[in-house]
């Protein structure tokens, strides 16, 4: 089944507070939301706690509100995630001190690559990871949404409550900023 239609069916079911549908939505969006949070907070444990909270908050929201105003289910999750992260920083009253940790995510699966290539690739990716942490939050967020979690520009505009033109400009600037850092 087409993923767009699948998502819309889930959304319709959740409008009727369907618990099973919410469990499916959990399986569907958990990784993306976790990744989004992770790049916002930069800590694995914090990201895990926050992601769990976000899903509970979303269920609570669905139970007590009408979700028909939201364009997509994904937009709803991201909006709640953003608010939860804002709350988290507000409580901590700190800025993002510790940025992205050392990642061990990189597992180059291409067996055909020789060692030299693998090392080059790893160095390049690590460089991107390090540098993305140096970007300002607005840029990092938009790059993750667009290029990692692959949301459309209109979805991002909906989540960030901005115009699509504005989102495009920010994406462009964020990419240039990252390129400058990586050079």
């Amino acid at each position, binding site marked *: *089944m087409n993923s767009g*239609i699948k998502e*819309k*069916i889930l959304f*319709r*079911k959740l409008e*009727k*507070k*369907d*618990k099973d549908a*919410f*469990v499916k939505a*959990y*399986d569907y969006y*958990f*990784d993306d939301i*976790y*990744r989004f949070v*992770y*790049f916002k907070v930069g800590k694995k444990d914090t*990201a*895990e706690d926050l*992601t*769990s909270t976000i*899903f*509970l908050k979303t*269920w609570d929201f669905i*139970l*007590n509100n009408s979700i028909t105003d939201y364009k997509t289910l994904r937009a709803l999750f991201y909006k709640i995630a953003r608010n939860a992260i804002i709350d988290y920083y507000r409580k901590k009253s700190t800025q993002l001190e510790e940025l992205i940790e050392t*990642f061990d*995510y*990189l*597992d180059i699966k291409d067996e055909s690559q020789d060692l030299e290539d693998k090392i080059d*690739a790893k160095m*390049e*990716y690590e460089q*991107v*990871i390090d540098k*993305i942490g140096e970007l300002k939050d607005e840029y990092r967020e938009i*790059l*993750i949404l667009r*290029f*990692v*979690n*692959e949301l459309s520009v209109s979805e991002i505009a909906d989540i960030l409550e901005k115009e699509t033109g504005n989102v495009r400009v920010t994406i462009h600037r964020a*990419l240039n900023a*990252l*390129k400058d850092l*990586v*050079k």
Partner: protein
Amino acid sequence: MKNINSQLNSLKNIKPGSDYKSKNRELLLTQIYNTADAKPVDFSFGFTAYFRQISSELVNLMAQPAMVVGLVLISLFGAGLFGATASKGTKPGDSLYVAKRISEKTQLALTFDEKEKAELRIGFAGNRVEEIEKVLAENTENNEETKKTVDNLVNNVKSEVGAAKTGLQKISKNANIDTKVTEKVATTVNKASSTSPSGAKNEEDEVFSANLGKDKAGISVAEKEMTEVKKEVDSKALLTQAKESLKSDDVANTLSVLEKVDEAIDKTVDSGEVKGVEETAAATTTVIK
């Protein structure tokens, strides 16, 4: 430096630990199943939900401007096509007959090549002959109304063939084809046009008795009406031949074949006897082969 977009995309590899994910899932399940239902859950999902979603997607899709223009075009041309197909076998008096005539007129209006126009006109003349055949077959009593309808159709055949003739003359003039030969073609077509249901009086009716595939029994039918019907069928065959010849690229050869057909037809007209038809048929077949 590789493409930065693809490098960013590789960050997808960052995922929550599977242990944490499954534990958290259990916890979430416990919590959400312990919450009271705000509203009774409607379990009527499955196919209906999918169908509802698909239909709403379809409506959204159709609301797009490009789609709307597309649908309008399809309905315009589609209606023309279906109308033309549905009205194909109609005869005067049928409800869809008007559609058939309109469709023919539209086809003519949309054709600019003289040769194609002539082909179309010969085809339409064939249609009229077919209609005469049908009208006569259904109205065995020779009443005024039938006669009037048939007369009208015959006039139509004449005008169509006349127009085709004019078109052909124009083509031959342009292509510097021997005018004489063209005249012969035109005469052949013209003769086809003068077919009439009151054909006994009309010598040229016999021309269309040049039956190419009919058996003897068909030719020797004594009853007048039946003979007339038969003649119309034959003229139809001739018109088809004229059309096919026109389609051929070898114009000169086609014209000479038609000339011979014309001569064979003239012979039949001279003999004026039904018996002579068979010979003509044989002659015509040989020539055409």
